[in-house]
C-alpha cells in the first residue's frame, strides 16, 4: 500500500476538504500526515507529498524546505500553492503597507514574508494539480493514474451550454446581474465567462450551475507555457467573435487587477517573471 502526506501551508483548507470527498483513496493509500485530520507532528517519509497553500510566513518556508526531503514525489495542489490564489491579492501595492503594518503588531508568531510565493519558487515540483479547489475526481486522478485522466481541453469543452451565432450581447453583465438562461452559453448572455481558455478537467460545475467561469484552474495547455498576454488576447478574441461588447469595456473587465485572471494567478502575472510550468506536469 502506498502512503502519502498533505503539507498545509497558508491557505483555506478547501483543498483538504475536497480530498476528503475523494474517499476512494482510503482503499489504496495510507494517509500518514495531514494536520486537518491526523495528529502527527511532522512529515514522515512518504511516496507522495501533496502541498497546499502558498508560502506566506517564515514558518511556511521552513516547513516546506524540511518536508520536501521526505517525499518521493511532490505535487502542488490548488491555486495558492501553484500561482498565488485569491489570498495573494494582499500583495497588491495599494494594500500591502496596511496589511504588513497590521501583521507587525503581533509578536512570537510566524512572521509574514515581504511577499508570498508559489511553492515552485522555493522547491522543485513534480506535478501540478490546479483548481480552487481541485475537484475530488482530480485528486483521485493525481493519486491513481494521472496519465489516464481524460478531460476536455478547456472548461468550455466540458460545459455543455449551446453557443448561438445570432445572440450577440452589447454590454457585459458582470458576474452577478440578470436572469440566467439554463441552456445557452453564458457569453451569449453577456457574462464575462473565461471558460474558453481555462483548463478543463473540473467538468464545469460553475457554468453548469449558471455562474461564469472565473478561471480557477488557470490557463489551458495552449497558454500555460506562454506569457499572460496570450491568455488575455485569446479571451478578447472570443468576445470579439461572439459579442458586440466594446473592446474598452472588455479590457476594463479583464485587466483590472482584481478581475478574472488576476483573481487566481496574481503571483504569476503581477510582474513575477517566473519560468513557465511545463504542460506535461500539469493535470
Amino acid at each position, binding site marked *: 500500500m502506498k502512503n502519502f502526506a498533505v503539507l498545509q501551508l497558508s491557505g483555506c483548507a478547501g483543498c483538504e476538504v475536497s480530498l476528503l470527498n475523494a474517499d476512494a483513496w482510503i482503499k489504496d493509500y495510507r494517509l500518514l500526515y495531514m494536520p486537518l485530520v491526523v495528529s502527527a507532528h511532522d512529515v514522515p517519509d512518504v511516496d507522495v507529498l501533496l502541498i497546499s497553500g502558498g508560502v506566506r510566513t517564515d514558518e511556511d518556508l521552513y516547513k516546506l524546505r524540511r518536508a520536501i526531503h521526505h517525499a518521493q514525489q511532490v505535487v502542488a495542489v490548488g491555486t495558492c500553492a501553484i500561482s498565488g490564489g485569491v*489570498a495573494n491579492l494582499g500583495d497588491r501595492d495599494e494594500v500591502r503597507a496596511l496589511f504588513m503594518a497590521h501583521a507587525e503588531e503581533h509578536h512570537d508568531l510566524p512572521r509574514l514574508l515581504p511577499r508570498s510565493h508559489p511553492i515552485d519558487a522555493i522547491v522543485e515540483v513534480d506535478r501540478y494539480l490546479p483548481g480552487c479547489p481541485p475537484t475530488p475526481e482530480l485528486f483521485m486522478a493525481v493519486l491513481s493514474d494521472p496519465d489516464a485522466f481524460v478531460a476536455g481541453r478547456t472548461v468550455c469543452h466540458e460545459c455543455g451550454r449551446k453557443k448561438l451565432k445570432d445572440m450577440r450581447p452589447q454590454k457585459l453583465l458582470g458576474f*452577478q446581474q440578470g436572469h440566467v438562461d439554463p441552456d445557452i452559453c453564458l457569453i451569449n448572455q453577456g457574462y464575462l465567462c473565461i471558460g474558453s481558455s481555462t483548463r478543463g478537467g473540473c467538468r464545469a460545475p460553475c457554468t453548469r450551475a449558471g455562474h461564469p467561469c472565473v478561471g480557477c484552474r488557470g490557463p489551458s495547455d495552449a497558454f500555460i507555457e506562454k506569457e499572460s498576454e496570450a491568455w488575455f488576447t485569446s479571451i478578447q478574441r472570443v468576445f470579439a467573435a461572439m459579442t458586440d461588447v466594446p473592446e474598452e469595456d472588455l479590457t476594463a473587465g479583464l485587466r483590472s487587477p482584481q478581475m478574472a485572471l488576476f483573481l487566481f494567478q496574481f503571483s504569476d502575472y503581477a510582474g513575477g517573471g517566473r519560468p513557465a510550468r511545463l504542460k506535461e506536469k500539469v493535470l
Partner: protein
Amino acid sequence: MTTLTFPLSRIEGHARVVIEVREGAVLSAHFQATELRGFEYLIKGAPAEQMPVIVPRICGVCSTAHHVAAVKALEDAYGIEPPPLALQIRELLMLGQLIQNQATSLFIFTMPDRLGVASLFQVDAASEAEAASGIAVRALQVRKAGTDLIGVAGGQFIHPVKAVIGGVTSGITPSAAAQMREQLQAALPIACELFDYYWETSVALGERLGTWGDDEPACYISAVSGLRPNFYGDAIRLVGCEGDSCALFPARHFREYLSYDDTDYSYAAKSSYQGNVLRANSLARINIVEQLGTPCADRYLKQFKATFGSPAHAILLFDLARGIELVYALERAIELLAAPLDVGPEAVPYTPRDGEGYGLVEAPRGPLIHHYRIENGLIAQAEFIIPTVHNVLAIERALRVAANRYITADSVNLELERAVGRVVRAFDPCIACATH
C-alpha cells in the same frame, strides 16, 4: 518559568496552545492563531459584486457560510428582498454546510479522542479498534450527504456559486431534489447510529476523566432561537449564564453589544459581552433553542436537556450538541426537498448603489457577519465578524482550567496534552476564518 507549547491538529487551520507555568502555578494559557492572509485588506478596491466569489476563499470548510453572508450583505446595501425560492435554496445551502461540518467535527476531529487513535484513517484493520475503520467509511458517507447537498444547492460543494445578489442562479429540478432526498434519507439512520455510539464513548470518556470538562458558566450567542432554528439567520440573541435572555439585535448593531480586543500573541482577535466570556457554536444554540421541530433531533434534544440540564455548560457537551444538530440538519433538509424547488422567480432585478450592508448567517460555528462599505461600486472597507472569535476567551479560560487540573508543583500529567486537544476541539475553532 516553564513554557509548554502544544501544536494542534484535527482542527481547521494553524494554531497552537502555549501555557506558562511557574512552580506549579499556571500563569497563562494562550490560544495562538499563527496564520494571516489579510482578507480585510486584500479585498479593498475589489468590485463589490465579486464578494460572493472571493470571500468564500477565506475558508474551504466554511465557504458556504461566507458565500451566503456576502450575498446577504450586498442585498442589504442595495435594499433587495430575494424571492422565496432563493430563500429556500439558501437555507438548504446552510443545512448542507451544517451536515458537512458537524459530521467532520464529530467523526474526523473528535471521535479519535474517544477511541484513542491519531486519526480515523490510520486505524489498522487488524487492530482492536477495527470497528473504527467501519466508522470512517460510514462517517464519510454522512458527511458526503452534506457536501452533495451543497453541490445541488450551490453548484459546487466548496466555494459554491449559486447564491447571487437578488436570488440564486437556478433552483433544483424535481429529479435532482428526489435523488438528494433519497441520499439524505439513507444517511439519517447511519448518522443516528454513529451518534449513539459517539454518545456512549463520550460517557465512557467522561467517566474515565471524572469530568465533562468543568468550567464556569458563560453567556451564549447565536443567530438562531425559538422553536425551529433557521440557519439562514435574522437577528442575534444573547443569553446569560442562567439562560436568561440579555439581548436581541440585528447584525448592524453588533458593536453596541460586543467588544473586540486584539492581542499581540495571536493573529485572531477575541470578543466579549460587557466583560463577560461568550460562547458560540453548537452548545450555544442547543441552550438557546426551545425545540428543533424535527422528530429524531427533538428526541435527542429532550434526552440531552434531561441529562445535562439547561443551560448546560460542560465543555465536552459542545460535541454532543453537534450530533443533535447533525440529525436536525438531515431531517430538515429532507423536509425542504419535498417541496417544489424550481417554481417561481429565482432572482429579483436590482440596481447596485453605494452604501453599507450587513449580512448575517448562523454558520456551524456561530453567528457570522459580513460588513461592507461600498464606494463607486468598489469595496472601501470590509469587516468579517467571525464566530470563532466569540469563543477565544472561553477557549483560553477552559485551557486554564485543564492546565490547573493536570499541572502540580512536582509534575505535569501527560494527560494535559490530550486535554488541550479535547478542549480546543470541543469548540471546533476555525483558524482560517478567525484570522482571515
